[in-house]
Each structure stands twice: as structure tokens, then as C-alpha cells.
């Protein structure tokens, strides 16, 4: 087995509780940390896992009995959707407007499919559920979309590596994610599966795009939108100073925003500590 080119960040005396849950056809991992953790940490992870499966029941387009399937089939209307499904679709509509139609869950064949938003959105809620139980240092990694709360070790915000598009064990960049989320999109894992709503083809502008910001669902959606639209997507961030992007095209990369500035991040976390 090849050795990863990166090391696991030190716990610096903290302990951790981890879990990997198979759901949505992928795996979601949990990492809860602190100076000490009691049995409640595991219980709170279990609670968050229950939520992930609930999300599957609401939003899976593979389930014949899910509300989203009923909506896609025209058997039920938007008004007949559970409130949480309506909220997600409303958020998707906001992101469709923000990206001028580049992120468009309504453009795919077979009816609306919000799964480009749901994964990051659900990771956020899962992390917040654990925080609400009193475990403030949490990261939930929903198959590459990571929601981070608190710290990974005393005084150190979560540091998340961005995977090399070609080499699965190599990291091309790290980002400090402080009470926010990071999402990466690209077609290197599952082949051409992203549709460009404008051209109706699978020609992508970028190899990979990573977005960091305060909202997991939005990060998830924008990462995909960046892959479609390319660097012009930074215009979506006008008026959104908390957002950052790391974009890869072939052998080149560029980044934008505060998440990749270690000074800004450390200042931010120090301020939070006081």
C-alpha cells in the first residue's frame, strides 16, 4: 500500500471519537474531539447518523417512496412536500439565481434533483446536532464535503487537505476551516456525471474546484458550479467576503479568499478563543 504523503494532525493531548457510516451510496465519517469525551459523544454521533438516513428517505431519487421521487414524478406538488424538502428546494433556487443558472437542480433529466446541495447541507446539520449535545469540536466528512466546528486540537482550527485530482493519496493544498464547511467537486472519482445546464453537455471548465465558506450546502453547490463555469465563478462571491475557492485546471491551480490565508485564519480563531 502506498504511503499517504500527508500526516494526521496531532491531537496534542486531546482524544477523539470516530465513526464511518455507509449511507447515500457513499461513506460519511465523523470525528469528535476534546480534552475528554464521555459516552455521550458516541450517542450524539449515533443521533447524527440517524439524521443522515432520514435525509436519504426524504431526498433519495433512488427510493420510490421518497418525497423527492413523488415530486419528480408529478405525483405530489411542491406544496405537498415536507417543510424541510421545501426549504432545501428554496435554498437551491437561491443558489440557481446566485450562479446565474450554472447550479440548476431543475435542469437534469427526470425532474428536480437537489443532491448537489443536500450532501453538504446534511453534513452541516449533522455537525450541529453533535455540537448541540455539548461536543463542540466536530468534523463531519460527507464523502469529501466536510463541515467543521470548533477545533481539531487545542487552539488549532480544523485543517482539511484538498485531494489531488489524479493522485488519491496526495494533497495539493490545505485549508483551515473554522466553523464552516469545505466542499470539492470534480469528475475524477465518478467520471463524467456533471451536466452543464447551459450547454447541455459534459464539457467542464475545471478539473476540480474547492469552495470554503460558512454554509455546507452552499459550498457543495458552488464547488460543482465552479467546475462547470470556471474561474468566472469568483464573481458569485461579490458581497460574500467569507467565501474562498481553490480551482484546479490541468496542472494549474489558483485560489481566492480568506480560507487559504493562514494569518487571517489564525487571527479569526484567536479572536474566538478570547
Amino acid at each position, binding site marked *: 500500500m502506498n504511503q499517504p504523503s*500527508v*500526516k494526521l494532525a496531532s491531537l496534542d493531548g486531546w482524544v477523539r471519537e470516530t465513526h464511518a457510516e455507509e449511507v447515500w451510496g457513499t461513506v460519511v465519517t465523523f470525528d469528535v474531539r476534546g480534552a475528554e469525551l464521555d459516552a455521550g459523544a458516541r450517542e450524539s454521533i449515533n443521533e447524527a447518523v440517524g439524521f443522515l438516513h432520514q435525509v436519504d428517505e426524504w431526498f433519495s431519487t433512488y427510493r420510490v417512496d421518497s418525497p423527492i421521487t413523488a415530486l419528480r414524478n408529478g405525483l405530489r406538488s411542491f406544496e405537498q412536500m415536507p417543510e424541510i424538502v421545501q426549504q432545501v428546494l428554496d435554498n437551491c433556487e437561491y443558489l440557481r439565481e446566485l450562479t446565474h443558472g450554472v447550479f440548476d437542480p431543475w435542469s437534469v433529466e427526470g425532474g428536480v434533483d437537489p443532491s448537489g446541495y443536500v450532501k453538504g447541507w446534511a453534513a452541516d446539520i449533522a455537525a450541529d446536532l453533535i455540537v448541540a449535545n455539548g461536543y463542540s469540536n466536530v468534523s463531519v466528512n460527507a464523502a469529501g464535503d466536510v463541515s467543521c466546528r470548533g477545533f481539531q486540537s487545542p487552539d488549532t482550527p480544523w485543517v482539511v487537505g484538498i485531494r489531488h485530482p489524479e493522485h488519491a493519496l496526495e494533497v495539493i493544498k490545505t485549508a483551515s476551516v473554522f466553523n464552516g464547511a469545505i466542499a470539492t467537486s470534480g469528475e475524477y*472519482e465518478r467520471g463524467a456525471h456533471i451536466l452543464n445546464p447551459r450547454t447541455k453537455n459534459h464539457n467542464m471548465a475545471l478539473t*476540480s474546484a474547492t469552495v470554503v465558506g460558512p454554509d455546507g450546502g452552499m459550498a457543495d453547490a458552488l464547488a460543482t458550479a465552479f467546475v462547470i463555469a470556471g474561474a468566472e465563478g469568483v464573481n458569485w462571491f461579490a458581497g460574500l*467576503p467569507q467565501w474562498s475557492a481553490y480551482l484546479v485546471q490541468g*496542472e*494549474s491551480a489558483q485560489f481566492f479568499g480568506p480560507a487559504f490565508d*493562514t*494569518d487571517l485564519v489564525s487571527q479569526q480563531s484567536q479572536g474566538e478563543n478570547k
Partner: protein
Amino acid sequence: MNSRLSRRMLIAGGALAGLGSTMSFGSAQALFPSENPGSGITDSLEPAASSTPTAGQTSAPAATTTAAPSATSTSAPSASASANPTSTKKATTKPTAKPTATATTATGPKDGDYTGTAKRAGVYGNVQVQIRVSGGVITAIAVPVAPSKDQESIDINTWAIPDLKAAALSSQSANIASLSGATYTSRAFASSLQSALTAAGL
């Protein structure tokens, strides 16, 4: 474009990843002499539409505190290249910042991270720019201060890190807690780095 860039992008020597914050800066100096090949990032800093830099409006916290305002707002290369001895006092708190040693020469800038301001006119406002120099060439560029609300367009269409392999190499010493990547299947997870990170230490 190059000469315009060199006039407007004024660099304060400081380590981006160092101990100090971006507020610890020494002298302001022009990083790019006009003869210095820098076209690779010119477009990223200088939208064609901007022509009249607005002095003294930079939102960059780095430049406003230590570098003399007159130096940061001037568009004359000669003024920006001259080191300001009084401002080096603050830099002494940060051993990695050696502003006086990075004076621009014919051979180009010294390796390290630099923060400066690129002044833009009109709707573009002011944007703080950070670059990383390695082997005398720019290997990375960042725009850490996001645009103001009224900005209509941002242009960073130039690819700034020409070799992704080099970026991967530089991350080899990184200590990470998690990994962000494109969505993988359940099957692919087993051989993923994230799988190793989750299991590590158990």
C-alpha cells in the same frame, strides 16, 4: 501591462505563513521591475477597465498599519522601491520578515511570501494580493480580501500555479485532520486517504 502592474502592486516583505499577522510589515517595495517577466499574473491583478488608481483607499489591513500610507498609495516605482527604515521596527518582532533583504534586483525577488496591495479603480475597488515566490518566480497568488459588495466583476482568469505537482510536494509536510475531494463511492472509500485519517490512532 507589466509596467502598470509594477507601479500598482506594492509589496511589503512579510511571511504569509509566519508567526506574525499580516499587520507586521516592513518597507514597501515594488516587486516587479518593468523588465521582470510577470505577464502570467498581470491579468489577474489588473482588469483592463481600471486606469485610475484611487490612492489611500486600500482595505488591506496589512498595508495600512505599518507601511507608510504615502508609500502604498503612490504609483511611482522609485518611491515604492525605497525601503522605509522607520517601518522596519515592527518587523523585528517577526524573525521571518526581512524586508530590507528583499530589495528588488535584476535577478528578481527573493523567495518567500509577499503581501501587497493592488489598487483598482471604479467598480473593482481595492484588492489585497498575496504571492509566493520560489526560485525567483511566482508560484502562487492569492487574493485574501474578498471584494466589496458593490463590485461587479472580479478577474482572476490567469492560472497562477503552473505545476500542480509542485503544490502537492509542498503539501507533503502538511498535518491534516480531514480530506476534501470529489464524491467517492462506498467502494472507493475503503482505499481513500480519508479512510486512513478516520481510522488513524484507533
